[in-house]
């Protein structure tokens, strides 16, 4: 399967879906899914191959290169799979809302431009797909009008700033090395001075950092996530965030070889330590902020920012185990985070638009499958053993501890406990507790939403018990970067200073569970009681008011609140105000009547003459 045929089919298919939508809605939905199925099949067929296809375009005779290697393969497959599940999920979700053709067209455009970025072999096509992705994301974020447009505006301003920084970086790379193709650049970069390399790193760091929502550049993410329609926010936070990760890996491991990157610049103040520090801060602060959120999607958005910190830690640390940990965490996070967004989307769909955590409760009685999917997603997010989050976090912690940086490991581990608190808050407020009377007749999630959720939950479990599968592919990609791969087997990692075998953890947990379940069935059978037959000190249970969810962690959050003022957000809004005032000042100069302009010219000439008389410059 040639790459260019793949991309051609992608973009042709998305255009076709838009046009078909005019004729029949049913056919459009099916076509959208078919195109995505074709994409996944096409990408899986490229497993293991690493080929490049250069297409000559007329544009200033820069060659447009498409290349596939195991590293890009894993990213592309994740994007395609998450996109497929999101589109299937949005069948029913979008039907009731307006402008459905536009939504599908944009959705497919975003997914395929992301795959385009991952498959691109040179900076030109990389930049083209990058811009295409940014713009279609903007249109999708502001899909719900109203507040969503402000969120979209915030997003597009920051991503344009990022792509401009990338443009400057690309041009300086071109002037330095004379070519835009990645191999060419990496070949001729070893002669460049470390100062220049650091300059390039900073530029690309700004571009990829904004997309990857690293701490100071994360400001656009929470509003964008909570305003975007749920299927798109599943894709947005599942994979789109990680395009920045792809960029980082490409830059650090692909173009500037990792040994060069690690000992680049001053021993303490170099880009690697900056990335590590920001990664650690990105783990901690959003985790604490997520404790305060009462809107389900905003809570998940802050959790995405926090989890992105783990990936940054993994990538910036530089050893092969940390890279595999970071990439594996990207892969796992894409799976369980999109699963969680779909769960929240399904609940929002059924309770028509309720996202506020304090007014939900007890939905496990009405939506059991959604609850199970949410629980598995949350277990993956926390990193409970037997789920995939555990293995990738273990890898990251293991490298940090063994390579003698315990403080980073401490921050990462503390982030996990913060994750437990806010993810239990999510599960408790939506599914546990007392079912309000107005949701008594709530139906379960529709089948078209259940299928993607069940599929993603299964993947969370399968890759949790058999981490060898994704790790094998990551090993192939590490070979591509010229790093020695990890010693892995089907059940986990076998390194010298500490190995992890999911086999015995899984058997211990499952056998223990069965034995205790049999032990539980001893003795008389339990009688079943509904939520009204509950302990209320003898009084009858008050309906609708017997749920503890408002201010769930109040003693803790009251202690943390004074330290968590959103510095980054205040900084940006102050910046925006400053620019607007400056703009106003300049606007007053152009008053529009010609007299003033003549006056300005005379004044200017007078100043020049005065300087010449006084200092005789010329």
């Amino acid at each position, binding site marked *: 399967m040639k790459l260019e045929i793949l991309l051609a089919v992608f973009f042709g298919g998305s255009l076709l879906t838009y046009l078909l939508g005019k004729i029949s809605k049913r056919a459009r939905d099916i076509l959208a899914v078919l195109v995505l199925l074709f994409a996944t099949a096409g990408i899986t067929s490229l497993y293991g191959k690493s080929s490049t296809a250069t297409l000559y375009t007329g544009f200033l005779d820069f060659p447009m290169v498409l290349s596939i290697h195991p590293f890009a393969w894993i990213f592309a497959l994740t994007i395609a799979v998450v996109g497929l599940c999101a589109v299937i999920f949005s069948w029913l979700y979008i039907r009731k809302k307006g402008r459905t053709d536009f939504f599908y067209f944009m959705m497919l455009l975003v997914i395929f431009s992301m795959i385009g970025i991952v498959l691109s072999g040179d900076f030109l096509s990389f930049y083209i797909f990058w811009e295409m992705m940014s713009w279609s994301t903007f249109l999708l974020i502001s899909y719900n009008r109203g507040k969503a447009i402000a969120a979209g505006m915030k997003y597009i301003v920051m991503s344009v700033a990022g792509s401009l920084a990338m443009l400057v970086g690309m041009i300086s790379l071109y002037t330095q090395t004379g070519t835009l193709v990645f191999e060419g650049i990496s070949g001729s970069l070893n002669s460049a001075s470390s100062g220049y390399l650091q300059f390039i790193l900073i530029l690309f760091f700004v571009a990829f950092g904004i997309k990857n929502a690293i701490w100071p550049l994360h400001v656009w993410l929470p509003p964008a996530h909570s305003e975007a329609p749920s299927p798109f926010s599943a894709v947005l936070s599942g994979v789109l965030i990680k395009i920045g990760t792809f960029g980082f890996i490409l830059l650090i491991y692909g173009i500037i070889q990792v040994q060069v990157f690690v000992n680049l610049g001053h021993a303490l103040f170099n880009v690697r330590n900056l990335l590590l520090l920001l990664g650690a801060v990105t783990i901690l602060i959003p985790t604490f902020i997520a404790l305060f959120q009462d809107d389900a999607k905003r809570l998940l958005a802050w959790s995405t920012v926090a989890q992105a910190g783990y990936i940054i830690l993994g990538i910036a640390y530089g050893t092969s185990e940390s890279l595999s940990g970071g990439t594996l965490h990207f892969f796992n996070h894409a799976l369980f985070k999109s699963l969680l967004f779909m769960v929240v989307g399904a609940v929002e769909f059924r309770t028509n638009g309720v996202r506020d955590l304090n007014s939900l409760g007890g939905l*496990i009685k009405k939506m059991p499958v959604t*609850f199970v999917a949410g629980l598995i997603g949350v277990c993956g997010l*926390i*990193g*409970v*053993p037997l789920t995939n989050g*555990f293995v990738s976090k*273990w890898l990251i*912690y*293991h490298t940090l*501890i*063994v390579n*003698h940086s*315990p403080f980073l*490991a*401490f921050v990462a*581990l*503390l982030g996990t*406990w913060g994750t*437990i*608190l806010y993810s*239990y808050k999510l*599960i*408790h407020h939506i*599914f*546990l*507790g007392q079912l309000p009377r107005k949701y008594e007749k709530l139906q379960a999630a529709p089948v078209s939403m259940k299928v993607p959720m069940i599929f993603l939950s299964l993947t969370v479990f399968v890759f949790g018990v058999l981490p060898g599968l994704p790790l094998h592919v990551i090993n192939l990609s590490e070979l591509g970067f010229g790093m020695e791969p990890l010693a892995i087997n089907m059940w986990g990692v076998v390194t010298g*200073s*500490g190995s992890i*075998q*999911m*086999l*015995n*953890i899984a058997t*211990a*947990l499952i056998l*223990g*569970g069965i034995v*205790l379940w049999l032990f*539980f069935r001893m*003795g*008389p059978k*339990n*009688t*079943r*009681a*509904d*939520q009204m*037959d*509950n*302990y209320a*000190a003898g009084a009858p249970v008050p309906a609708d008011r*017997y749920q*503890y969810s408002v201010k*769930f*962690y109040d*003693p*803790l959050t*009251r*202690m943390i609140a004074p330290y968590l003022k959103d510095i980054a957000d205040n900084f940006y809004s102050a910046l925006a105000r400053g620019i607007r005032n400056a703009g106003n000042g300049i606007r007053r100069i152009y008053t529009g009547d010609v007299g003033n302009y003549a006056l300005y010219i005379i004044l200017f000439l007078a100043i020049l003459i005065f300087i010449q008389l006084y200092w005789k410059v010329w």
Partner: protein
Amino acid sequence: MVLVLQILFVSILACLVGLFLIGLSRKVTARIHWRYGPPLSQPFIDIVKWFSQTAVSHGKLFDAGMIFSLTGSVVVVLFLPFGGICPLSGSGGLLVILYLMLIAPLGIALSAGESANPHASIGVSRKMQLAFGYELSLLMILLSLMTYYRTVSIVDIVETQIQAGWSLVQLPLVVSGLAYLLIMPAIMGIRPFEMIQAPQEISSGPMAEYGGKFLAFATLQHAFNIYIGLSLFVNLFMGGGSNAGYFLIKLLLAFMVFQVVHAVWPRFRIEQAVRYLWRWPALLAFIGLIIVWVTTS
């Protein structure tokens, strides 16, 4: 085959030790209150009674959460060296133990949440906040241990201690050991950090809706919790014992220290507990980590 025997031996013995320690704690508390107190076998009698009652269940998750939490505790016990034996030492080490230790509270939290009772939800939110409080220092202590011994696996730590003596007396680790002593009652959930199951305030918190069988499981989980907290402390700081006898004696010794505190202390409020846990033990643990980091870099 030996592994299966070891697993059975360790898990059953851990359960018996845990229950015996609960009985002992009720007896010691009674003696300190200057009264006779129940026989040492009272927890076993309670469990027999609870299993003869028809409990009331609030749904499948109510049962499944309970079983999930007890499985988590049992599996953690298999990872901890018991004297010379450590059935599942092959995989992971301290990081895996840390992650397996969060299954038990998560299981109880889920099943208590399902019981649709605000007392249970308040109890669970207190449990989560308290866990977040003591994890701050526990993580720093474990990291200082791992960097000091340059290994992740707990079995190696025990071996090095058997030759080189208790890590409580190693100079760089004394501060971390002290911090661990300060957070130990919080890990085991005994007074002054018993606000999770406070019978007077929130009618025994998550256990408000637990009837016969569920109370038996909750007590077993509490027993395992005490065993895990103590054996982690003994293995990491008191040399772990070359055979089971030494290990049990050290366990009893450590238990008596915290039991006496349990008998006489009142109960903290949750904000006081978290503020305390984030101030003194965290400070000590941080200093300990810095010392270890500097000395072994």
